[in-house]
């Protein structure tokens, strides 16, 4: 075989964690100048394999041949020197430091006295940010950015190493269409420069749009590799899941009942103004819009996470005053927040407590003690229902794969059996099979007469699931339209970008 053809050959990689064999001897070959997709269900081992490659944790066994040389054990710092950089699935920016300090962390430019050269850092940062079309002052602190912006900064950082191989572990899960297009532009440019990219995503359309070759894994095993263009969608899904997945958006039509939630002239000091909409029993309202359009802030204000400035919220015709999430939960509201790490999971706590935390009062007996048996039974039920891949309920959530962490959160809120469920990017990072399972659950809840408000950046998801769609642009509602066969993505995008406004 032509040695020079491959930049990277990983052979028979095994990785074990206590109680879990995450990789059972898998392969991966990546050519020069290739965009290579890794596909597989949640917990298949994609991130684990990439962490082995980036030197984060050494493989238990197996060989890595990179740049024609067999590599021994190496650290992350050495990996970077070898020209391997990685964008992680879980963002870990240093929140209270500036963009530029985050980008140049650990390799800050020095002046001749050995002190940090802030001026050069600033100028270089502007350069780097320009490459990815981001218009932020490098001195802005990370906390002030949206998740999507943070993700773009992370991408900028990985590129700035000028690596030969860039690993992107679900970079688009926090991005919207516009930024995804930007990212694909960057990826194509890097490819033209002869650089290789390993790309992980659960979004099939992205895989077809941008990658050259796909390697599929299932349950820690290597299933196969194909050129993307030779691999039809159904075959790829079958390789991943091991069976056919019937329907992607199993939305069952259900009878829509009385008004459940009415929001009138809701305004926030900073994020949105005069937002009015309503949701009926059994209805799914989708909210679309670009990053920063205020979608997330609207539902977080209704839930008491953010403080609204004015406006009223009525539930079943009665005005309610929700100041805190606690109030919201006692009014039978539930929310799956956008940012899994910041406001979702408790990383070092057990799967069990992570699932049960919003629902503890339900399990208390007469003297205020928790009925553990019942709690465990119900957790197990949900673990089965939405296929959370975990060795036990006592596993720390941080040891689950990203998609499985998301499933734990979905379970947390479904367990509260809410009347009104707010979902902010509910299937972020979830594999195709489970995605359709979660969609089925959402649909089923609507069928039971619950009201659902779903924010999603994936237009197909919004259009596949919603009865009505509300579109926001820069803090204002630009359209509320009935979902129908003739509604197009283009039409929604035109509302989202503010070029057209429908009558509201």
């Amino acid at each position, binding site marked *: 075989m032509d040695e020079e053809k491959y930049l990277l050959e990983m052979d028979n990689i095994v990785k074990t*964690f*206590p109680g879990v064999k995450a990789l059972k001897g898998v392969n991966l070959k990546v050519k020069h100048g290739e965009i290579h997709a890794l596909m597989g269900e949640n917990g298949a081992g994609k991130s684990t394999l990439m962490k082995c490659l980036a030197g984060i944790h050494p493989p238990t066994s197996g060989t890595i041949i990179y740049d024609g040389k067999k590599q021994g054990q190496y650290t992350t710092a050495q990996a970077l020197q070898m020209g391997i950089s990685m964008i992680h699935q879980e963002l870990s920016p240093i929140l209270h430091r500036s963009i530029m300090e985050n980008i140049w962390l650990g390799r800050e430019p020095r002046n001749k006295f050995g002190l940090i050269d802030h001026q050069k850092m600033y100028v270089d940062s502007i350069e780097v940010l320009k490459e990815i079309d981001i218009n932020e002052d490098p001195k802005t602190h990370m906390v002030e950015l949206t998740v999507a912006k943070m993700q773009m900064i992370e991408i900028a950082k990985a590129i700035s190493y000028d690596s030969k191989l860039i690993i992107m572990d679900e970079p688009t899960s926090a991005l919207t269409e516009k930024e995804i297009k930007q990212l694909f532009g960057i990826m194509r440019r890097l490819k033209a420069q002869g650089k290789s990219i390993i790309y992980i995503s659960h979004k099939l359309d992205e895989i077809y749009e941008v990658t050259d070759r796909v390697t599929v894994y299932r349950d820690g095993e290597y299933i196969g590799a194909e050129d993307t263009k030779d691999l039809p969608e159904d075959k790829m899904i079958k390789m991943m899941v091991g069976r056919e997945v019937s329907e992607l958006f199993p939305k069952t039509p259900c009878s829509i009942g009385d008004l459940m939630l009415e929001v009138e002239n809701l305004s926030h000091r900073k994020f949105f103004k005069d937002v009015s909409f309503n949701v009926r029993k059994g209805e799914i309202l989708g909210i679309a819009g670009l990053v920063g359009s205020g979608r997330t802030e609207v539902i977080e204000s209704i*839930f008491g*996470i953010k403080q609204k400035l004015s406006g009223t919220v009525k539930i079943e015709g009665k005005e309610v005053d929700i100041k*805190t*999430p*606690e109030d*919201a*939960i*006692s009014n039978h509201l539930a*929310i799956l*927040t956008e940012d899994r790490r*910041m*406001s*979702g*999971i*408790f*990383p*070092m*706590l057990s799967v069990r*407590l992570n699932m*049960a*935390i*919003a629902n*503890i*009062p339900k399990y*208390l007996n007469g003297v*205020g*003690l*928790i009925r*553990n048996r019942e709690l465990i039974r119900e957790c197990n039920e949900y673990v089965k229902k939405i296929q959370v891949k975990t060795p036990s309920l006592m596993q*720390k959530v941080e*040891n689950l794969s990203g998609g499985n962490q998301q499933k734990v959160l979905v379970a*947390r809120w479904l367990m509260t059996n809410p009347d009104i469920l707010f979902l902010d990017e509910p299937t972020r990072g979830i594999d195709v099979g489970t995605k359709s399972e979660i969609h089925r659950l959402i649909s089923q809840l609507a069928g039971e007469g619950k009201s659902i408000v779903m924010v999603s950046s994936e237009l197909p998801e919004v259009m596949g699931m919603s009865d009505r769609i509300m579109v926001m642009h820069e803090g204002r509602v630009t359209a509320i339209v009935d979902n129908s066969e003739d509604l197009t993505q283009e039409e929604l995008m035109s509302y989202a970008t503010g070029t057209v406004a429908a009558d509201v």
Partner: protein
Amino acid sequence: MIIGLSIAQPAFLSSHNIFNVLTQSAIFGIMALGLTFVIISKGIDLSVGSVLAFSGVIASSLGQSAEATSKYFPNLPIMPVLVPILAALIVGALCGGLSGFLIAKTRIPAFIATLGMMTVARGMALIYTDGKPVSTLIPSFTAIGGKVFGVIPIPVIIYFVMIIISTILLSNTRFGKNVYAIGGNINAAEVSGVNVKRNLIMIYAYSGLLAGLAAVVFAGRVGSVHPGAATGYELTAIASTTIGGTSHSGGIGTIWGAFVGALVLAVLRNGLTLLGVDAYWQQVVEGVIIVVAVIIDMRKNAKKD
């Protein structure tokens, strides 16, 4: 370590000495139970030693016998011992609750809030007593330092009861789960409907309450409380909790661990004394052991993951 000590010094294993060790660990052990809640919630409580002294002098002043020379309330009839006990618990809980309130409302770091409380409570104890010890307690008060059936020390019984209550509180109630949630991710806790402010106040109030209880045990054993009493006890209690595996990064820890940690420290002190180690050197050894114990514990946990 216990085995090593019992070989080197057989007196160590006598039932008398075992109870002795437990009694010695009871006071800072009780405080370590409260600190476990605090530290799991990613906080710290530096005030427990001073709160012990403050609630101790107040309780003692209400439980002095008639012949006490410096009686605080000369006209007060002798009251049932329950009154000083309740006084200690209330004062302790109030001090702790106030720290908790400050932390919850103003979001100042727990370190600062409780450092302030530590200094204020010590000052209050000194003002209240004018710097003099409160002594000559009624017999029913000093009986708390005694034994039932002449064998089992009452401080040990109180300690064990509190261990059980704290364990149940931490693992089987909503409050306990909230403590883990707050320490695990305070934002996520808030979103999940945990009333973070109220729970923070409760956490520190519980820590203060236990400091008040420790004051009762202290007064019962010693027979008097000096306003300068229990200086530095907070650090011993924090060390016990930490040796027991409670993580200062929040979300991790058990009551059982705090008990074991307190026992390790008490055994160490007792053992070193029995072995005749010089008191100054004891401090050096103790310091080294605390650090080593925590390193070992963290290594063990890192392997498990």
